[in-house]
């Protein structure tokens, strides 16, 4: 199998991640913060260390302002439902994942209004339109950093600065960039950062988090036990407890910690450059296949490590199926949970095929993937 779907979830994980999870499951008992026995304190230590690592990794300062979640979607929902009230206005883009689109849709039904800035992957961000979309009631700007459909980046630094000038909060969906592009929330004027643990940060599925900037108070999405203030029936108002009810994924978090450690050792720039090299090799190879069309530009160094393509007008699902079944090449096809982005790309019916290598992917695997696409294209055209 040649796994080229790291944008969905990364695989393989570094060996240390798996070993650490095994160690924690085998040797550590206890539910962090539930009581003061050595087991509960032991796992609490572990969680705290990873919290600190994440705060350091994204330069966000106080570790207690890092909230662990199940995934990016959970973090985004916590941020959106935690801030927005009926009457508030939000600015977003047409590239967003359903992780943003659907909660915003639900919030619209509760009286929140949304402006969607049309963005075409690979074209310049329409700053004039963006600036003109601010209203008196604008509370939040939410955008992804890189499109999960085509890999194109948004100028989040500049978007953040503009939002800050207007006194509006900025939430970034870093699902496709955390662990691949360096993110400094202070320098980049990011107020809230939602990130997956299971993609670029190389941790296991079921991990993710939200970073909450100073002076921001979010209403909890989930209420319940925190191990603190147990005598009170009111939810604690201090972080992280306020937003972390229920037992944490300690084993997953331990794996995420090792993923971070691995990235720091290997170097985030080295990881990204390796991945972009593989993407460039893919793009260059795919361009030699008749009828292949590549979306979002052909310069891999300007994008998250994602290559999106189609073969003629063929259904992307069938291309992906054949790549898997006949050549063991794992891709993702269809709409990638981002229907708006497909409308802009003109692929709403056909969908598109996405290949996303990791830094573990070898040159030979990429060569084989290109040959597989060549064969599938031939088969489809000959049919």
């Amino acid at each position, binding site marked *: 199998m040649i796994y080229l779907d790291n944008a969905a979830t990364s695989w393989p994980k570094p060996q240390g991640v798996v070993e650490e999870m095994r160690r924690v499951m085998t040797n550590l008992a206890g539910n962090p913060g539930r009581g003061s026995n050595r087991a509960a304190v032991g796992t609490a230590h572990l969680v705290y260390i990873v919290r600190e690592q994440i705060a350091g990794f994204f330069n966000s300062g*106080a570790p207690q302002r890092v909230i662990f979640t199940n995934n990016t979607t959970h973090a985004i929902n916590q941020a959106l439902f935690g801030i927005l009230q009926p009457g508030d206005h939000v600015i977003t883009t047409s590239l967003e994942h359903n992780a943003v689109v659907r909660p915003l849709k639900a919030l619209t039904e509760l009286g929140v209004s949304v402006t969607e800035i049309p963005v075409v992957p690979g074209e310049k961000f329409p700053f004039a339109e963006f600036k003109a979309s601010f209203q008196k009631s604008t509370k939040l700007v939410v955008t992804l950093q890189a499109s999960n459909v085509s890999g194109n980046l948004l100028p989040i630094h500049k978007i953040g600065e503009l939002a800050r000038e207007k006194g509006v909060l900025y939430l970034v969906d870093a699902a496709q960039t955390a662990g691949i592009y360096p993110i400094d929330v202070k320098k980049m004027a990011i107020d809230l950062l939602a990130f997956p643990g299971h993609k670029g940060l190389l941790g296991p599925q079921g991990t993710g988090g939200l970073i909450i900037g100073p002076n921001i108070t979010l209403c909890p999405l989930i209420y319940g036990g925190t*191990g*603190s203030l147990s005598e009170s029936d009111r939810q604690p108002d201090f972080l992280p407890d306020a937003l972390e009810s229920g037992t944490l994924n300690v084993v997953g978090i331990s794996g995420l910690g090792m993923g971070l450690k691995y990235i720091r050792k290997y170097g985030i720039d080295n990881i990204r450059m390796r991945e972009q090299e593989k993407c460039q090799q893919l793009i260059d190879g795919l361009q030699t296949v008749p009828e292949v069309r590549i979306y979002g530009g052909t310069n891999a160094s300007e994008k998250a490590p994602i290559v999106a393509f189609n073969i003629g007008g063929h259904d992307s699902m069938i291309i992906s199926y054949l790549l898997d079944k006949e050549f063991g090449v794992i891709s993702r096809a269809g709409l990638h949970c981002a229907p708006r982005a497909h409308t802009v790309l003109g692929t709403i019916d056909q969908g598109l095929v996405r290949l996303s290598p990791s830094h573990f992917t070898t040159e030979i695997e990429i060569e084989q993937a290109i040959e597989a696409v060549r064969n599938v294209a031939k088969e489809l055209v000959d049919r």
Partner: protein
Amino acid sequence: MLYGELKQYRALITFDSLTQAMAAEKVFKKLDCPYALIPTPRTLRSGCNNALCFPHERKEIIDDLIDEMVVFTGVYEANNDGFAPLKW
């Protein structure tokens, strides 16, 4: 009633959340100050079930905690009758 290391150390800090206790531990470690994480005495229960006790003669370390932005809910001196606010 005094228990655990509190018997010997006599000074105690309480927190709202265990995350803050962990942040405090880091400062103690850095400054080489002995400490122990113990269950928060019932009478002082503030939020977090765990409190940190440390030698009374090292009480100036509270300033370092403040410098390091650790949030705590109280600092106490343990005596045979119970707990009194600690001045440092």
